[in-house]
């Protein structure tokens, strides 16, 4: 376990550097208001990145999450517009996400289509279908009970952050202690060995995608209730943000290893860069380049670390 956390050190160092720089150059960044806003803006990213960590650990990838996010958000909005009971919203969002995720999972695990192909196809299909059906129209005029679950802003914000963190903590605990979740790691590191050890690897892969969908649905719902209407195309580039956060957090893309705490660090780092650059007065034109550079340097540091390991262990030199 210790070893896995160590993999997040490049991200941790980058995060510490960034926050120390901010403490000197722009102490206003530490205002509680600002930290709360950043947390709220990244709730969705955290949940999606959590699911993505599991997908990557099991040796797969899911690039359809942004599209699923948009679909689930719209389902939430449509239900709210029909004045369905409040409690139904989270359930419906989670259920819709699970079904969509399960479709990915079925194609990947039972039909054996590579996950990047499946999710590339479903990403395009859902996005275009949404555009076709909604014609880009937003869902407006939602009842007052929609925003913040009708609880008012302060308690609504608290509820969103707390429920995301509780969900994250539960999954983190499960990823370390439940044998069903440990089976994900076994499948990811060597599917054949895992199968021989009696793990139903196909079912595991299927469920990882289904849960990825559930988390995306919940994330979409938690994000939607921060506003008073639902736009037709949300979650643009969410998949890239989530994958970047996971990878920067030290989970190797090759699967079998990875820790959710690393992902949390990755999400905080990637979510802080944008606002931090504004506080530091960097021109917005260089933001994308900065993000690319950070991903690459995390990747490079990881490569160097592995290169050292290899010299020590004297393993395969390819």
């Amino acid at each position, binding site marked *: 376990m210790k070893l896995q956390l160590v993999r997040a050190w490049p991200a941790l160092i980058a995060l510490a550097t960034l926050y120390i720089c901010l403490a000197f150059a722009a102490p206003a960044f530490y205002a509680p208001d600002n930290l709360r806003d950043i947390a709220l803006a990244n709730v969705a990213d955290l949940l999606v990145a959590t699911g993505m960590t599991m997908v990557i650990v099991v040796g797969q990838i899911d690039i359809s999450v942004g599209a699923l996010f948009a679909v689930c958000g719209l389902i939430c909005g449509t239900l709210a517009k029909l004045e369905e009971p409040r409690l139904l919203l989270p359930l419906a969002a989670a259920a819709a996400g699970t079904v969509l995720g399960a479709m990915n999972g079925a194609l990947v695990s039972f039909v054996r289509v590579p996950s990047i192909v499946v999710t590339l196809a479903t990403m395009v299909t859902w996005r275009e279908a949404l555009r076709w059906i909604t014609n880009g129209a937003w869902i407006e005029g939602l009842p007052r009970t929609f925003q913040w679950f009708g609880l008012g802003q302060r308690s609504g914000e608290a509820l969103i952050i707390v429920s995301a963190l509780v969900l994250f903590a539960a999954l983190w605990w499960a990823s370390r202690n439940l044998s069903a979740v440990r089976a994900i790691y076994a499948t990811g590191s060597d599917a054949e060995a895992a199968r021989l050890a009696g793990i139903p690897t196909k079912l595991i892969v299927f469920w990882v995608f289904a849960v990825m969908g559930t988390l995306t649905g919940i994330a979409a719902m938690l994000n939607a209730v921060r506003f008073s*209407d639902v736009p037709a195309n949300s979650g643009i580039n969410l998949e890239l943000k989530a994958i970047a956060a996971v990878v920067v957090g030290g989970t190797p*893309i090759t699967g079998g290893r990875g820790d959710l705490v690393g992902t949390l660090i990755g999400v905080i780092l990637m979510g802080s860069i944008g606002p931090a650059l504004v506080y530091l007065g960097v021109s917005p034109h260089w933001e994308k380049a900065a993000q690319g550079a950070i991903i690459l340097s995390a990747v490079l540091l990881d490569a160097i670390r592995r290169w050292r390991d290899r010299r020590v262990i004297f393993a395969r030199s390819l």
Partner: protein
Amino acid sequence: MKTKIQHEAMLGVLIALEVALFSFTGRNFLSIDNFSECVRLSAEIGLLALALTPVLITGGIDLSVGSMMGFCAVVFGAMWHDAHFPIGIALLLTLVMGLLGGALNAVMIAHLDVSPLLVTLGTYSLFRGLADGITGGARSYSGLPAGFLYLGQGYLGGVVPTQTLILVPAIAAFWLLLHHSIVGRGLYAIGHSAEGARYAAVPVVRRLALVYLLSGLCSAIAGIVYVARLGQAKSDAGTGYELIAITTVVLGGTSITGGAGTIPGTLMGLAAIVLLQSGLRLSAWPAELAGISAGALLILTIVLQRLVRPQTIQPYAANAKPRPRMTVAARLVTVACIAVVLIALIGNWVHRSRLVQTGAETNAAGKRRVTIGVMPKSKGDPYFISCRTGAEKAAASLNVDMIWDGPTSLDASKQNEVIEGWITRRVDAISAAVENAASISTVLRKARAQGIKVVAWDADAQPDARDYFINQATNQAIGYTLLDEAARVVHEKGEFAIITGALTAANQNLWISFIKERLTKYPNMKLVSIRPSDDDRDKAFSEAQTISKVHPGVSVMIVISAPAVPGAAEAVKQYGRKDLVVIGLSLPNLCKPYVHDGEIEAVVLWNTENLGYLAVSAPAALVRGTFPVGKPAFDGGILGTLKIEGSEIILGAPMIFRKDNIDAFDF
């Protein structure tokens, strides 16, 4: 061998089916014109797909190709325009730049053994980010010499697009590399098992480096071809191309896990996708279907592959037990293909002769159905959706067949493709909201040369590329009105910030430049920050939050992207700041609640439904010959009499929606 034939036969059937279907539904689908347009449009995607085929065969992936195109386009433009290099040297240096970018990927993937998905995900952001950074997102380089533009827009012998000169040698080179060289066999071996290949004395690291270098080089060439086709170099060149290219390669039968794939397969995949796109366009079916069906096709081909193919392929089984070159099934399929194409050709001929007859009949009756292609800048934008309502009204009342099609997001190159399709389809008039004047004008001129009436609306093309421009409000009027409103609210002093759409959006950048120009009138006002929202409400929300914290002195935000205005207003609302207001350019319906609550002081816009109405009624009048050419006024039907200034039809000054009048409008 068997599986290869089966897959390619399957693609052959698919292509034959597409040809058969579209030759019935699409106008002029089976024509030389359409064929050469398809070749032209497949050049860039084709180059990327060719380069990605060996990459995928080795079990790798390269997501950075589209971004590389944008980066190379900008580098080329900057070297030619800013550094004053001769065009040949600039071209050469751009290719070197492509190689360097490829080398960056190659070093990290081949030498440092980092996962290709990760590395190219990083360089995907990095290259695009560099391109944005170099140009500030806004600059684009145009006015390139005609000799260079010939590369992307010319025809050899009047028929064959110039791109063939690049595409064909590239095909030949990759075909030789993969199928007739030791290097190529090595790539397959690496894809099957890199470790095994190493033991078989394949220099794995060097081979891997080679495929990523080639991929960088091809992306650079594709970037240059793209620049030549559009006539301008901008940092958003090739956005999203990586996905189409990968789809093409995988559809062509290349295994995403490596070890299998052919160049002919990739070419067939390319043909399937390009024919699908062009067929949908010529049939005037929604372009969204292209994405959906490409996704479905991709899954379907792989599922079929899995069903047909045994689970584990024995790579050398073919050698051990020689099979006939073609199985019975493959032969049957080939015959079926030929039969389908023949039926299609005959059917098409019958269909056409009928079309000509019905056309003659309606002509005799004196009233010809007029077909007008109307193009928004982006189909998903609420602003253009409300224009569409007006356009549909006009089409219904004027008895016009309207085709409403355009890019699904802001994309100058897609606009060209749609218009090329319309020219091939022989519409009577084209009415286009121009995303980028420099890049669209060539194709609009081509349309005019073929007798198609051209009207620009929302944003203008170059004056000689259109008959009329519907001027809803000048960019200057918009910029000035926005700042005037802001100045009024803050009593002409204080700090303000701007939230724009994408940093590369041409219109928004023009408005910003006019806002800055107007600023000289208000010496006590200061622009402290310009932030992008990428036309995403959630991002606009976060940006507005950050601005109000970093610049607490800001008392007014000018937001100039329709979906971003409610986002920024929501941020102000959640902050509960009464001393901060939003001035927006957006649709009244999206903003109503915030205008009543007081977060939005004013929304500046023209009547979008009327604009959409005029975008149909003006070209319809032109085609029917009822347009008052040379007169100073145009009878706009339900819009009343409109002024004509030169070749511009004036819709009126921008409207300002405030608390007191916003409820009177519903769009």
